């Protein structure tokens, strides 16, 4: 299948052909095509001056890069330590059985790709399964069928413009489960969400409104528009970074656990309003918008 590879040159140019940015380039190319077509690696190698061998070895080294086309829905089953002891392998096996493929393979109808990953950074919610960026927490074998059914029916997308819901949420770090709420500091009259942010050479606190639907933030340093910021948990210092890119702008998403179960993800780009909400619901029928 021949693909239009002109955007690849633009991506490489955007990073100034820097060799150190090869991983970031490959990430963006993968976000664009869903995998890394061989021709794109050649373009990256030509433009950066890196040999094709080196680009290829980077692309094969990291598990998140795929050289084979992936299915429409990417199912990642976490087998990290925390998810493993909570029954992750059984979940993976159940997915393998139901989809009729092995981990790492794609169904013949190109609908599902099943992957096992070593940690999704949401240990507090394990065993965890991520489908197209939507987090399914505390998954049991019974839920597997429902997840597949729901994915086939189409996972909810939050309509950024149409989503007018406003309600307070209480969030915690997906890695250490420590609460991120700061009741000393109010934004919109509610306790704020305190995280650590880092961009460029600046490193400081950032407080977000805990009202779902409000985009008010206060920060130690003024963040320029359109900057992608790295978020960290102020307690365990783990980077809050989701495996999926923002559906709006492609920047990494920032996952946070919602008290009561579920996951909210916000875009790490200043000014982008991309977000996702997956609330835990035992019947999994209405994960989004359940409140």
């Amino acid at each position, binding site marked *: 299948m021949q693909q239009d590879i002109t955007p690849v040159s633009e991506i490489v140019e955007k990073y100034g052909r820097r060799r150190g940015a090869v991983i970031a380039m490959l990430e963006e190319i993968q976000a664009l095509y869903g995998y890394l077509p*061989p021709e794109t690696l050649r373009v990256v190698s030509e433009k950066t001056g890196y*040999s*094709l*061998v*080196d*680009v*290829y*070895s980077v692309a094969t*080294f990291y598990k998140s890069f795929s050289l084979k086309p992936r299915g429409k829905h990417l199912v990642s089953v976490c087998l990290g330590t925390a998810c493993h002891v909570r029954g992750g392998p059984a979940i993976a096996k159940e997915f393998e059985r139901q989809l009729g493929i092995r981990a790492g393979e794609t169904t013949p109808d190109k609908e599902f790709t099943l992957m096992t990953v070593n940690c999704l950074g949401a240990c507090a919610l394990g065993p965890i399964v991520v489908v197209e960026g939507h987090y399914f927490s505390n998954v049991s074998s019974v839920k597997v069928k429902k997840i597949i059914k729901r994915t086939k029916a189409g996972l909810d997308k939050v309509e950024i413009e149409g989503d007018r819901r406003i309600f307070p949420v209480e969030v915690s770090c997906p890695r250490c489960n420590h609460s991120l709420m700061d009741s000393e500091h109010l934004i919109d009259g509610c306790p704020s969400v305190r995280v650590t942010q880092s961009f460029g050479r600046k490193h400081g606190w950032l407080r977000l409104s805990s009202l779902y639907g409000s985009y008010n933030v206060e920060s130690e340093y003024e963040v320029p528009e359109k900057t992608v910021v790295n978020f960290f948990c102020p307690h365990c210092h783990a980077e809050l970074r989701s495996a999926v890119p923002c559906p709006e702008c492609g920047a990494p998403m920032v996952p946070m656990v919602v008290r009561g179960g579920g996951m909210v993800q916000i875009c790490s780009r200043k000014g982008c309003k991309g977000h996702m909400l997956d609330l835990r619901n035992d019947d999994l029928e209405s994960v989004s918008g359940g409140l």
Partner: protein
Amino acid sequence: MITLKINGLDVQVEEGTTLLEAAKFFGFPIPTLCHKDGLSPYGACRLCVVEIGEGPQAKLVSSCTYPAEEGLKVRTASERVVKARKMVIELLLASCPQSKIIQDLASAHNVHQQRFKQEYEDCILCGLCVRMCQEQMMAKAIGFRGRGERRSIGTPFDIKSDECRLCGGCMYICPACQLRCTYNEPEKAICGACANLSPPCLDKEEFKDMMCYMEPCVACEIKDE
């Protein structure tokens, strides 16, 4: 100049000298496998381990990558070193028992036992061919792919690389190579010859333009006759 002690002998070497170079210069033999003059040190095979430091701080380091330090005390053949070295050889022998070079090493270091399952791998990931291709042949046609137990050496996408000039340097330098020949898939072949008893490269069109670097090569001997 840096002063250090090798096996109790005070020696002086230039700054930037590795322990391996220093020891060799002063006549202390250290066996090597993944180290070749003219290629950058890599520290993959761990055959060149030496013991540095004293008492509880003593540790094993690979001498080919460790630069000489002022006042360092190095032992190139202590009991611990010899034991570690023998273990390395035994493991190498298990992964690639058909390699003449590894067999010779085992014999030279009195490794007589084989406690591990023999794997008959065709590659020990020493990286010699990768460095040869990159540093001496200036080609960068082959490299490492994947990681962990799926790490392998080869061309990108397993097809003949545009950079490859079929120089055969990788075959020449490989300590484990005989089985690397991909005779039945000539489009993947790097040199296309092999020391097979019924050489597949004989009288076949696709191998006509390829050069042979095996020594000795059964096929070439037959051709010459």
